[in-house]
């Protein structure tokens, strides 16, 4: 077991290094750096000035060395310009160059400075991740029980009417990406012109104009049912279908096993068969699926936060990418990559714990 975890962690570390290098390479391509130079320096810079700006700000030289610098395993660049002022990656403003550290990459906790938010990357990352954390928490709280319930009910009696109805529902939701369900939900529940809001307003049931809020910006300070339900529903809806179908498949497979038949034949009530014998065995596969669903959730979070203007991690990623905020984008990618790899690791280890038939040695 320990060996397995260590080997898995090794592969994970390698993957993280390669992926962050790819992101570093793609964000630090010459055209992006030129754009950065023009937006940070001046728009009217000549090509020669742009080239020297890039050199002066430590973006010249080999991409591998710059990656090592950024990571914090190579000494940061130090340059002394014509006026005799020494600047460097690790030298803060007005700091004595001699007193500065040699290494300062993300490993030392220096994640850089965001050019869009005008704040250190780590500070804005923390705030936006907290916001997204709430969103993800509520999505999980809604999505997982609903999906498992649908899957178990559908898979309990394969081919029954309940199964048909619930399976069709889960196929329909997995065909509805977030940008579709979000648009439809807003049109139905948060538009003063269409859907249910005008009807309810006519009946005098509403104090405001719409039933739910079409944006979730106010949820940044204070989460309420009315400003958070639509974004949560948008993300949860797409995930429910997939997890429910996996649970159903797992459940139908378990229900055809010998021990279920034996239990039925010895006269155990159907409810007890499902609850005691089938359920526990049917939950192994969905666990993996739920863990592996997190990376897709990240996708949904980015779309939903953009759609509902909720300033979390996804919104920040889109803003950083759209505005060529290289260090912010790098920081966000590191978080995203670690997040995805961690869920994969947990799913692997959890699977072994849940399923005693798997031996790793």
């Amino acid at each position, binding site marked *: 077991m320990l060996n397995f975890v260590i080997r898995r962690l090794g592969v994970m570390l390698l*993957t993280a290094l*390669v992926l962050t290098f790819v992101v570093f390479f793609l964000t630090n391509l010459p055209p992006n750096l030129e754009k950065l130079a023009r937006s940070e320096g001046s728009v009217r810079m000549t090509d020669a000035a742009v080239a020297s700006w890039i050199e002066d700000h430590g973006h010249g030289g080999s991409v591998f060395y710059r990656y090592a610098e950024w990571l914090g395993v190579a000494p940061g660049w130090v340059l002394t310009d014509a006026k005799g002022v020494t600047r460097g990656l690790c030298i803060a403003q007005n700091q004595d160059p001699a007193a500065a550290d040699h290494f300062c990459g993300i490993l030392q906790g220096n994640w850089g400075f965001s050019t869009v938010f005008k704040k250190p990357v780590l500070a804005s990352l923390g705030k936006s991740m907290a916001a997204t954390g709430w969103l993800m928490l509520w999505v999980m709280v809604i999505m997982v029980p609903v999906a498992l319930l649908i899957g178990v009910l559908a898979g309990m009696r394969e081919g029954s009417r309940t199964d048909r109805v619930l399976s069709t529902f889960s196929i329909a939701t997995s065909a509805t990406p977030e*940008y579709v369900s979000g*648009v439809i939900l807003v049109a139905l529940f948060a538009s003063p012109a269409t859907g249910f809001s005008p009807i309810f307003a006519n009946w005098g049931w509403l104090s405001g104009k719409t039933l739910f809020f079409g944006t979730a910006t106010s949820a940044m300070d204070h989460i309420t049912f009315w400003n958070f339900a639509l974004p949560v529903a948008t993300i949860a809806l797409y995930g429910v279908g997939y997890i429910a179908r996996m649970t159903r498949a797992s459940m139908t497979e378990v229900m055809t096993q010998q021990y279920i038949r034996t239990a039925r034949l010895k006269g155990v009530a159907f409810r007890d068969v499902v609850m005691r014998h089938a359920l526990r065995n049917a939950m192994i596969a969905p666990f993996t699926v739920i863990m592996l669903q997190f990376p897709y959730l990240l996708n949904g979070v*980015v779309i939903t936060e953009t759609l509902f203007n909720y300033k979390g991690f996804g919104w920040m990623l889109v803003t950083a990418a759209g505005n060529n905020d290289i260090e912010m984008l790098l920081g966000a990618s590191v978080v995203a*990559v670690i997040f995805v790899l961690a869920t*994969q690791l947990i799913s692997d280890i959890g699977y072994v714990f849940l399923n005693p038939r798997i031996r790793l040695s």
Partner: protein
Amino acid sequence: MEMISWPMIFALMAKQFWPVWGALVVTYVLSIRFKRKLGLYGKLFDSPVGMIGFAIVMFWVFTAVFANVIMTFDPLAQLGSVKNPLPGTPVPAGTEGQYPWFLLGGDHLARDVFSRMVMGARQVLIIAPAATTFAFLVGITLGLPAGYLGGKLDTVLSFFANLVLAFPVILLFYLLVTPEIRNTGIPVVLAAILFLIPIGFFVVLFNSRFHTNPPKRNLYVGITLVLGLWAYSGLAFNSDPLGVWGMEPNLLNVFVSVVFVNAPTVFRIVRGIVMDIKSRDYVAAGQTRGEQAWYIMLWEILPNARGPLIVDYCLRIGYTTILLGTLGFFGLGVTPESPDWGSTINAGRKLLSLVPHPAVVPALALMSLVLGLNLLADGLREESMKD
């Protein structure tokens, strides 16, 4: 002229879609008539779910084919100066003989939403199946040897596949589908590598089968190479001497990214199936006969893996449609006036709570197409399991 009511709008739309209804009826009559002779495709018509799914998919396919007849206006034409006219609004007087109504309203530039939806179907249904096919060819070509031969090759390929899979898709799109990256030539390099794999696939496919019969082998491999390299020069480098094959740079960028995201999943599926199948007796029989590894992979294992692969192919076209919509939603890699569904949703969402129709119409269209593909896959899975 008066506004028209919703029942009237639906009736007029149904009338507008007449070539689609005709083609659907012909397809269904012929297919059900000859369903016993049509293999898995024919069996689809035994499953109600599969039939419904197939009908929805074919509806959009025929819509894409007959788009020029169905649409009521040029999808890029701006009709009048009223922003976001509601569904059923009369079109301001213009040229003689033009269609009198905005069937599903207009968008913020007073373009006809109905026509844009119809034209968007054509865009989606060209790119999504093509990109999925490429992803499948790449995934199969790499997944077969990884599963069959195993060893170091498998370790290396699986590592790279997992690498791509661990990449958050949106981040990858934001990094790969930007105007800046086109200047660096990275999409062309990726395309050059990815597009070479299908040619290799068909060359190996024919060579492994006919290498004992050189004239036949030379004919097939020759045809593959001529056609393949001709298309390759046009698609990857946009330098087809005859000008038949070609892709705009931003379309190539989108295409390559979508193939790149999908191929590793296909690779994993194929690898898993091959590892299951390679212990079967007919594989052992082939090995005993002294067949080459590629012959066994391509002509013994692959045909027997077709069931799950066809099902996944349908699902994956739907997933690719969703991915393309995501790209459009973030305004990546498409021209702003493009009528594809994703970017239309994106354009419509700014005034979503006031005038939902410009965004809701393409949203429902996209959803119905993906739903149709999912139902079709479900029907196929059910029928292929009955064998």
